[in-house]
């Protein structure tokens, strides 16, 4: 059974600092997704990572995937308050299924 672990679950940062959120998963997968959720809102897709070594960047966020280590990272550069949200990684199950297994989420708070 595929398990997805994120850490940390809570992260409080100062504006301008850098930090990394980690997403580990337990079985082989060929696709990994990052989503953002603002309080009381829906999930918004950030990145789709489909191959080993894939790296995607959007603004101050950069996501990467290491399928051999079963690890994805979401790196935050020079954080700003607007990045405060909960970030989820989701991993695709094998075998032609569209199912995703989500991590518990990392609640990020960026303080001025």
């Amino acid at each position: 059974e595929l398990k997805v672990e994120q850490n940390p679950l809570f992260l409080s940062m100062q504006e301008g600092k850098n930090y990394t959120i980690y997403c580990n998963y337990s079985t082989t997968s060929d696709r990994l997704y990052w989503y953002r959720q603002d309080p009381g809102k829906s999930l918004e897709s950030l990145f789709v990572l489909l191959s080993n070594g894939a790296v995607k960047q959007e603004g101050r966020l950069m996501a990467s995937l290491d399928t051999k280590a079963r690890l994805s990272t979401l790196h935050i550069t020079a954080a700003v308050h607007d990045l405060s949200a909960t970030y989820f990684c989701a991993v695709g199950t094998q075998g032609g299924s569209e199912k995703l297994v989500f991590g518990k989420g990392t609640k990020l708070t960026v303080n001025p």
Partner: protein
Amino acid sequence: DARVTQTPRHKVTEMGQEVTMRCQPILGHNTVFWYRQTMMQGLELLAYFRNRAPLDDSGMPKDRFSAEMPDATLATLKIQPSEPRDSAVYFCASGLVRDGGSSTDTQYFGPGTRLTVL
């Protein structure tokens, strides 16, 4: 701007009542997912459909929950009878699976239905 829509956005009901939630997927998407989000359990997949056929409902309590897709533009999730432990936010998401393989496209989430069962 194509998006998934869900109704109602909020629902407060009493234990034992029937609750029906509706979802309109993005036009052209052929997979629809129902998720439940709670503080304790996080985001759980309840059921999903491809081309309107149910593929997996193993995450759903079978005795009280049912999910259907009467047509390509409507998915429903019904709870009968509802219980206080069903209080959660229910999200519908849709996606596109291309011929021959599993989906690599992201799932697009609706705004959710916040359900409170008293």
